[in-house]
């Protein structure tokens, strides 16, 4: 009887130690699969937009996706809920993948719009679909304005306001 309870105690103690060890190793394994710190920091792309040339499309890569940054000329009207004001100028900041099947549309500077070569979809300079199969405007990446620089990957107040507008519409 005494032996039994001692063996039972040893069994329970071993079980407790093994459980702690098991949970700890699961945590370590989960951590090993996490994106590396270098990957996480590369998830934020910083662009100084003040030096960009107006009516010329700039493409930066953020999290493996092409991001369109277009500086407006003075005669281009900003579109409510889509155009971003940084400093004195307006910009379009959008994920450059056609919302139809993910091709990358090209910018036509003379007509100030985007044309997708794959299936003929067209978007305005603010990324609103105006012709062809695309079901919705170009998606917007989360961004934050910091002086004249744009931080892609962080949600700033301007981005949140645009999202609230898009959600309410």
């Amino acid at each position, binding site marked *: 009887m005494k032996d039994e309870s001692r063996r039972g105690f040893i069994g329970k103690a071993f079980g407790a130690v093994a459980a702690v060890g098991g949970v700890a190793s699961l945590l370590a394994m989960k951590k090993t699969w996490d*994106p590396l710190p270098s990957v996480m920091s590369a998830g934020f792309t910083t662009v100084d937009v003040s030096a960009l040339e107006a009516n010329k499309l700039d493409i930066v890569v953020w999290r*493996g996706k092409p991001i369109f940054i277009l500086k407006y000329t003075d005669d281009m009207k900003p579109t409510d809920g889509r155009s971003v004001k940084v400093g004195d100028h307006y910009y379009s900041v959008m994920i450059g993948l056609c919302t139809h099947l993910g091709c990358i549309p090209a910018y036509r500077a003379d007509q100030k719009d985007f044309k997708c070569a*794959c299936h003929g979809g067209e978007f305005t300079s603010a990324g609103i679909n105006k012709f062809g199969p695309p079901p919705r405007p170009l998606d917007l990446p989360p961004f934050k304005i910091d002086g004249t620089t744009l931080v892609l990957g962080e949600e700033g107040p301007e981005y949140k306001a645009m999202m609230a507008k898009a959600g309410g519409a």
Partner: protein
Amino acid sequence: MAEFKPAGSMYEWFDQRLGIDKFLKVMMTEYWIPKNINFLWAMGVLLTVMFTILLISGIFLLMYYKPDMNMAFDSVNYTIMQEVGYGWLFRHIHAVGASVVFLIIYIHMFTGIYYGSYKKGRELIWISGMLLFVLFSAEGFSGYMLPWGQMSYWAAYVITEIFGGIPVIGGDLVVWIRGNFYVSDSTLTRFFMLHVLLIPLAILGAIVVHFYALRFPHVNNEEGEFFDFDKEADKYLAGDKKGSKVVPFWPVFLSKDFFVLGFFLLFFFYLVFFHYDFAMDPVNFDKADNLKTPAHIYPEWYFLWSYEVLRGFFFDIAGISGKSLGLMAFAFANAIFLVLPWLDRSPMVKPANQRPYFKYWFWFLMVDLMVLTVYGKLPPTGANAWVGFASSITFLTLFIALPFITKAEAKKVGGK
């Protein structure tokens, strides 16, 4: 210490230490298989052989393959295909083998369903078999990523994206699985590890469980007859081989299996040498480009039916988005086969053609799976989308209706 007599021969020496005689009896010469079976009972051995072929060809590919996003594509398409002696052969064996293994898995699975070999004591054979199906699917998916072509990349993208549909944790989970915000080098190396080590190990373990699960309920037969295996085995051992309902696994059963295997391997190597192109998608001979999506992304033929269930729901119903409905249907389709032994409420273990209601269910399912497979490959536009929707709904309905159909059948046949 056990008492050892001096061995009279090399065989005896080993037998004393390893019990070879006893082992061979238990595993081979006195492992009893019913006599009343047909060529469909050879699929298990075919699959074992196919797994071995995949393992061996994989080992040879592994010597030259480089799991790095900048080197993977060339290591396959240049080094292995053009420089390594017979490298093309190992690649074609591996790619065609991956496809053919699923063909045999499906035949094996539907043979089990047709003959009712998943109930009355055979539930664990069925469940371990379905576990193997899941593991082989994961193995096929992870392997498809490795050549790092356009279809590799975008299939990986689309499939990992599926986990994004899980509520709350979805977005973070996708990033965690990929090891990056998009499919990248970290994704390639971790799926490489899964493909060459972890999943094959799990498959080996599951095969052992699957075989072991057969030992007590025994292999089913063409008529679904239950009989006393010990009695029939005694009859066989006493010399009444004709009157006994069983034969030993070796040499009798396996010699017939080898005959079927011979035909199968002729077919397999015919594909490897003359029709390997069906397993080599032309899109995958373009290197992966994360900035360029192919116009149509589709999986290999063996995943088409569940892919079609995933995208069959292309509009919202009752406020639930089409995407979520598709995901739920996809999860249902992949999990439902697992519980088949409990969905079939009829106690009958008979081939489907002898079951009054089940036979219709079975052939309906076959036709529906074929429709899903065909439409899974076609672009989901216009009428195609509606056929996809109807056949997805049919699939779900068939499984929801199965308990009722089989319950009615049980009533009709009076619990036989």
